[in-house]
């Protein structure tokens, strides 16, 4: 679950970090009121959980409540990388002395928490890694001992602060807060970019990003509720497929993909691409493949406006091909006819039986996934 900036900043604040005054606004009127209360100049920030919203026009400064009001009218409803702007975060404009980068992730290789710190920030870490990799300091924190003073010292001095200064203290408390947020909220990422020194000399997280482990949401009912109320980065279709229990990701092509298992489904997407097609989605029905589940998956894609061809690729050791075939037949029957084509590749038991059932509804069953993929791509051609 990706937290909105305003949610992330509220968490920072809850952990004692000083953040610029800000208000969430859902209408231009609320923006006007917020700008007035906070005092201009303010910054209007579109609350969409994608990177690069600034370049996409999702961040604007305003010198008066009126200007904020007018700007917000254009911003509400904007589309930023496929997401619609419904919330604006109105925040005090901060004059910045310098910008830094600080994030906390889980390092897979060492199985430790890992702080990435750079005295240069404001751009993506990918950018920093490319242009000045020597500026990135990695500080590993083992979960069995937790964050210690020597870690903090190492990070804060790398960011360029001097021991004993108030800035050192502020930066240290931000490091501590980020670590506590990471652990207490089962986060996968806690990032402050830019972390800034203001003209007044305060160390302030100008932007904040938190991603919480979806598997741990059951421990955090408040977040679960917030996600339910605002599903944020899922499209309508993703929400629909997830509700049924599928792993689903929206892509941009026209060949609908259904696979069992994440790796196989991805490789099916890649296969379609390899033969010149464009996958429309990733839909993983999970390891097994029952009649009911297959039916539901096919129904999802039958309802998908962009999908022209549905490519079902099931590899099952003990999965019965006749079951899968019946699931597809059921989906077609429930839909009551469709213009979409279906191509099935299937490895399991009772393949002949499955082939016969699919033949009834005019769906070809392939044994070779490559042949099936070629066919799907061919059928999708205009």
């Amino acid at each position: 679950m990706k937290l909105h900036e305003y949610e992330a900043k509220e968490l920072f604040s809850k952990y004692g970090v000083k953040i610029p005054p800000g208000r969430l606004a859902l209408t231009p009127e609320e923006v006007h009121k917020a700008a007035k209360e906070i005092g201009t100049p303010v910054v209007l920030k579109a609350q969409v959980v994608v990177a690069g919203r600034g370049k996409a026009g999702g961040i604007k400064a305003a010198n008066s409540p009126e200007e904020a009001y007018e700007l917000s009218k254009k911003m509400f409803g904007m589309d930023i990388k496929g997401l619609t702007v419904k919330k604006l975060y109105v925040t005090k404009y901060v004059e910045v002395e310098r910008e830094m980068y600080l994030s906390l992730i889980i390092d897979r290789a060492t199985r430790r928490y890992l702080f990435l710190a750079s005295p240069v920030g404001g751009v993506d870490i990918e950018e920093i890694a490319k242009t000045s990799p020597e500026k990135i300091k990695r500080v590993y924190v083992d979960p069995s001992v937790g964050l210690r003073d020597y870690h903090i010292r190492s990070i804060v001095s790398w960011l360029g602060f001097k021991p004993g200064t108030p800035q050192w203290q502020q930066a240290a408390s931000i490091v501590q807060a980020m670590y506590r947020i990471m652990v207490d909220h089962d986060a996968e990422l806690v990032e402050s970019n830019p972390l800034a020194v203001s003209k007044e000399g305060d160390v302030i997280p100008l932007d904040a990003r938190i991603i919480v482990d979806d598997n741990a949401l059951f421990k955090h009912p408040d977040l679960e509720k917030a996600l339910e109320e605002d599903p944020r980065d899922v499209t309508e279709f993703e929400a629909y497929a997830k509700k049924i229990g599928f792993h689903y990701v929206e892509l941009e092509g026209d060949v609908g993909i259904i696979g069992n298992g994440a790796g196989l489904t991805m490789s099916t997407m890649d296969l379609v691409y390899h033969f010149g097609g464009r996958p429309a989605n990733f839909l993983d029905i999970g390891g097994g493949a029952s009649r009911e589940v297959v039916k539901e998956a096919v129904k999802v894609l039958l309802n998908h406006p962009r999908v022209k061809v549905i490519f079902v690729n099931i590899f099952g050791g003990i999965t019965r091909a006749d079951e899968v075939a019946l699931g597809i037949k059921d989906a077609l029957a429930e839909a009551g006819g469709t213009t979409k084509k279906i191509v099935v590749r299937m490895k399991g038991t009772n393949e002949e039986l499955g082939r016969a059932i699919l033949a009834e509804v005019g769906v070809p069953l392939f044994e070779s996934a490559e042949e099936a993929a070629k066919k799907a791509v061919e059928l999708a051609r205009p």
Partner: protein
Amino acid sequence: MTVLVGPNTKVVVQGATGKEGRFHLQRMLEYGTKVVAGVTPGKGGTTVHGVPVYDTVEEAVKKQGANASVIFVPAKFAADALLEAVDAGVELAVVITEHIPVHDTLRAVNYARARGVTVIGPNCPGIVAPPVRVKLGIMPNSIYQTPGKIAVVSRSGTLTYEISYQLVRAGFGINVAIGVGGDPVVGLDLMEATLKVAQDPEVEGIVVIGEVGGDAEERLAKLYAEGAINKPIVAYVAGRTAPPGKRMGHAGAIVMLGSGDAKSKIETFRSVGIPVAETPFEVPRLLAELLKK
């Protein structure tokens, strides 16, 4: 012989009385695995498919000599189940369970490693070794009937079966197949598992199946380039068409902070001389070519 498992592997199934546990316990028995005990707290004294069930792993170890565990318990309790297995003294634990919170995994896996226990998973199909007919996991038995010299190491489940099937059809035999798990943090990662199978003299060739997310493939390539592995490797990497920032089914299959995309993994493999198949179906051919050399 095969790595990690052998004729003396005695398995306890944690979560043996649940639907999944019960089902796969039987499949493991059918495959030939010595499943000596099941564990479900509160169900001690019962049996599953003739296998005695205990309340604790400690009892299963003491009374049946179990030295390996395969874990099917629900995500909320799975990390604790792993800790229990470690404390009870097993040498190998395979965690099948998906959706374990990653911070829980982190703690449990680090604990196991510090105590010298090998963990496969979580969110994995397990390990199967045809030459000794031992399976701790959920791979379909039918695919793994042909013992041989090829090791398959993978971050995926069904894709592993698919490629194993293609290998067998092409005339290869399987020495061991390890699905290391699709979570960001796993007990034995793709690099470590590859290194392990490479050290087995019985293994002649290795198929590595990677995917988007993390840097295990890159670390493996580095190791290979340094000469730490001198066995032929063919790789396949799933997810070239996966968009950044999106989780592709597996919790670990995500391109984050600009790292982990499939293309760079493929390039890295190729840059150190590891051939990468364009499709899963190309793997057997590339492997045959490599072994001919």
